[in-house]
């Protein structure tokens, strides 16, 4: 992981503070997920197997002379010649801790060789397989994720804008994970293929805790309009990009 300085976000509310924390990777670890469980739920390879490669290790390849290659050290995955693989997240609009933008900021600022894709209801990150696993593990184990309000969903992501279920869990039409005895268990991988064991993703956050840890401004929690500094900066950015975009010829 790259060593970075603290990232700043305007505003003094808990939401603004959480946004800054996500960007700075200054995250509280809330649960432990083993490497084997992570590999199982990502569904790209069998746990314990070697990483399949798309080219030989860089050391064996004999790279051409290039000043940029000398400056930039390759990531572990690139050194080994790993395949590019992805993890895709869905975060509920009902006070999930992260949002697609902040998952992207987190991976793009704190990790190298990543290709995040930010969409309205889902976020995915593509990287060399072992690098991607590293990012996903951080996001899964820390306060960036509530297992009840967010989920790894490779296909059929439907659910982020739906009302929560009666038990407070985000709807998943493919039933990849569910609440059992107070914890969220996942018995399918992110693509909804059944896996051999039930992976325990930990306890979902209570409503109050989710409201405290969220990066979403909501009228029923921390309203955007009450964070004056954020509003001022959003206005400033919009004004400047509009003025820049207006180029009469």
């Amino acid at each position: 992981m790259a060593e970075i300085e603290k990232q700043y976000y305007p505003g003094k509310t808990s939401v603004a503070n959480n946004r800054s924390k996500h960007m700075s990777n200054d995250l509280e670890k809330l649960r432990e997920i083993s490497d084997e469980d992570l590999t199982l739920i990502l569904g790209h390879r069998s746990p314990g197997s070697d990483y399949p490669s798309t080219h030989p290790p860089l050391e064996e390849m004999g790279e051409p002379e290039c000043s940029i290659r000398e400056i930039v050290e390759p990531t572990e995955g690139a050194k080994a010649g790993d395949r590019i693989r992805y993890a895709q997240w869905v975060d509920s609009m009902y006070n999930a801790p992260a949002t697609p933008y902040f998952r992207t900021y987190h991976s793009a600022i704190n990790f190298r060789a990543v290709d995040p894709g930010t969409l309205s209801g889902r976020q995915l990150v593509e990287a060399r397989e072992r690098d991607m696993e590293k990012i996903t593990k951080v996001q899964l184990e820390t306060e960036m994720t509530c297992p009840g309000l967010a989920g790894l969903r490779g296909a059929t992501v439907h659910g982020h804008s739906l009302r929560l279920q009666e038990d407070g869990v985000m709807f998943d039409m493919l039933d990849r994970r569910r609440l059992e005895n107070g914890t969220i268990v996942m018995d399918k991988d992110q693509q909804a293929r059944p896996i051999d064991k039930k992976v325990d993703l930990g306890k979902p956050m209570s409503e109050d805790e989710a409201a405290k840890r969220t990066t979403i401004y909501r009228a029923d929690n921390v309203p955007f309009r009450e964070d004056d500094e954020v509003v001022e900066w959003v206005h400033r950015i919009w004004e400047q990009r509009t003025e820049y975009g207006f180029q009469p010829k």
Partner: protein
Amino acid sequence: MVETASEPDEEYLQIELFPTRLLKPETTQNLLEELSEVDGIIRAFIHGPRLPLSVPSGPATGQDVEHPHRKVIQIGDTAIELSISVGRIRLEITDKDVEKEIESIAERVLPCKYELREGYFIPKESTVTDYAKRGPNADPKRRGLSDPKASEESQVFVLNKPENEDEE
């Protein structure tokens, strides 16, 4: 204007019950069971996100889903297989008193907050598709209750039939 046989002859009130959470099948069953005993509900329509039998897309296409919310619920003598997670219930009722009765049931049965609003939720007039699919003499009470692409029998259920009426 020429009146077709499918025009309703009475103007009923329409309401929507909108819980703040998606309902479990057990709650849905309790709610619908109680609603089925209220006199004055002409038509009811349940709505929510679909629960497919198999994975519709991606590398796992065709795998069984076995969603725990896809259950058979029993309302009176009628068994209904839920293929959705219920999020709204739209009702056509005879008058305001029925709405009050429905509100008291919602208060008692629902474990979460809800909204109850009046509006226009179930079609009152035939569309061209209705006409093409069901013809000019279609039963106006069944209008707008099922997807035109699906079979009506799997989606429309008649509860509390009048005694002198045969199988609909």
